[in-house]
């Protein structure tokens, strides 16, 4: 079996259509929208088009779970025992089982909300964070950045279910959220253990995570203001082992990502 599978070779059937994160950021409609006052961008049941926005996000969660499964699965296989301890691979195998259940739950939630598999396009930037060749970078990208984003997204969706009185959505998101907290803790624990005597490697891993966190902020998708659909879940991130300084840094990275996206969008719309 091939090691270090590139995103282009992920197995998908004809229902799935790929998109890139740059397509979304460079969309000329972004600039037009930025010039309007559409009110809060938070994903809340009372907002216009809330049902379709929630359905879209639920499909994004579903494809994200597939990619998290693929990322954790590759980590159990891509590295020899001298590169990644067997116990780390056991953790990844356990995470694969969690992610598999999350995929199934997400499919059922999609059905509940009227969404078909492959109804929306799929961006593979989550899996791309799981392609680092150093297992510690990969754990930082997947378990701390990707699963950290999952905490923010699931918490937002759980609140959406709570406010709208949707018992199915609230219950399912709460269960998945608990798993994500564990996954982040796993990443944090292995980061400390494997870099205990190698501060340079630890800093490389954390720098990689900062880059992934910026990417995962998706030009303002996540943050702490009314302009961000997904809100940074500070309390749950703290439960998962993020320090206050680390959470503050992610918040700052999100602001930078939003400013960068605005500048890129404005540049793309400017007459040449």
């Amino acid at each position, binding site marked *: 079996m091939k090691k270090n599978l590139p995103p282009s070779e992920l197995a998908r059937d004809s229902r799935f259509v790929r998109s890139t994160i740059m397509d979304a950021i460079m969309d000329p409609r972004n600039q037009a929208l930025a010039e309007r006052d559409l009110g809060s961008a938070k994903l809340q049941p009372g907002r*216009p088009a809330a049902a379709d926005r929630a*359905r879209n996000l639920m499909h994004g969660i579903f494809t994200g779970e597939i990619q998290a499964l693929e990322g954790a699965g590759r980590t159990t296989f891509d590295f020899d025992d001298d590169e990644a301890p067997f116990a780390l691979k056991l953790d990844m195998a356990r995470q694969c089982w969690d992610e598999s259940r999350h995929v199934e739950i997400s499919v059922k939630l999609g059905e509940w909300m009227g969404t078909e598999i492959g109804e929306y*396009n799929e961006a593979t930037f989550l899996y791309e964070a799981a392609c680092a060749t150093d297992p510690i970078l990969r754990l930082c990208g997947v378990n701390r950045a990707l699963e950290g984003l999952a905490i923010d997204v699931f918490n937002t969706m759980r609140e959406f279910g709570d406010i709208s009185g949707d018992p199915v959505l609230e219950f399912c998101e709460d269960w998945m959220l608990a798993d994500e907290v564990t996954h982040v803790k796993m990443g944090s624990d292995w980061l400390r253990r494997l870099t205990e005597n190698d501060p340079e490697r630890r800093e490389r891993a954390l720098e990689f995570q900062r880059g992934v966190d910026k990417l995962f902020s998706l030009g303002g998708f996540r943050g702490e203001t009314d302009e961000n659909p997904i809100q940074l879940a500070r309390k749950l991130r703290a439960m998962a082992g993020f320090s206050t300084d680390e959470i503050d840094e992610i918040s700052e990275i999100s602001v930078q990502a939003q400013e960068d996206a605005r500048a890129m969008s404005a540049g793309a719309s400017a007459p040449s």
Partner: protein
Amino acid sequence: MSHAISLTPEAFTLVKFDAAELLAIAEDAATAVGVPDDVSIAIDVDEALPGPLIASAAEAVPGKLSFWFSGGSFEDPKRLAMLQPEMSRTELAAAFLRGRDRLDGGFEDAPPDGEISERQRAIWDVYAEGRLAQQGGFLINEPRRRYSYRLRCGFSDVADAEYDRVWKAPSLSWTELEEIEGRLAGADTRPEARKPLRHESLRPS
């Protein structure tokens, strides 16, 4: 049959929609749902609003129906900024039915779309899409409609029973819709702040 249909903008610049294709779909949808030939149709598409921001509004005066749509109403969810013909046909047909309701279909006294509650709009959307489902020939995602309705009207047995009735209703009036809304409001156990009020609109005022 053919209708006098106008489309704004005449050419799209932010999305890759073909205006002529959308006009042809609109003509087909208008014919399919029986918009009279002597009723003109004006369609205004806000192409800056992408999917999944799906929203529309219908206005009617004798001899003329006017519609506003977000661009996301016609956008292929799989392909950024591309037109999805079948979905567009359904969105247009459902809006045309609501326009016909306002003209002479028992909704002549209904307030403008900007003034009705989210719950009223959700019921009306079920009535419109239910008729398309019964007529056949349209791309219908019934679970999507049900979820949108539940979000506005409540996740309860009472709400589900009303949904089933409205989905299959051969006819409905604004007065009857208000009565349904009253029953749904009475059965909605969610805290007051969680009940749908009229919220801000995507449509520029």
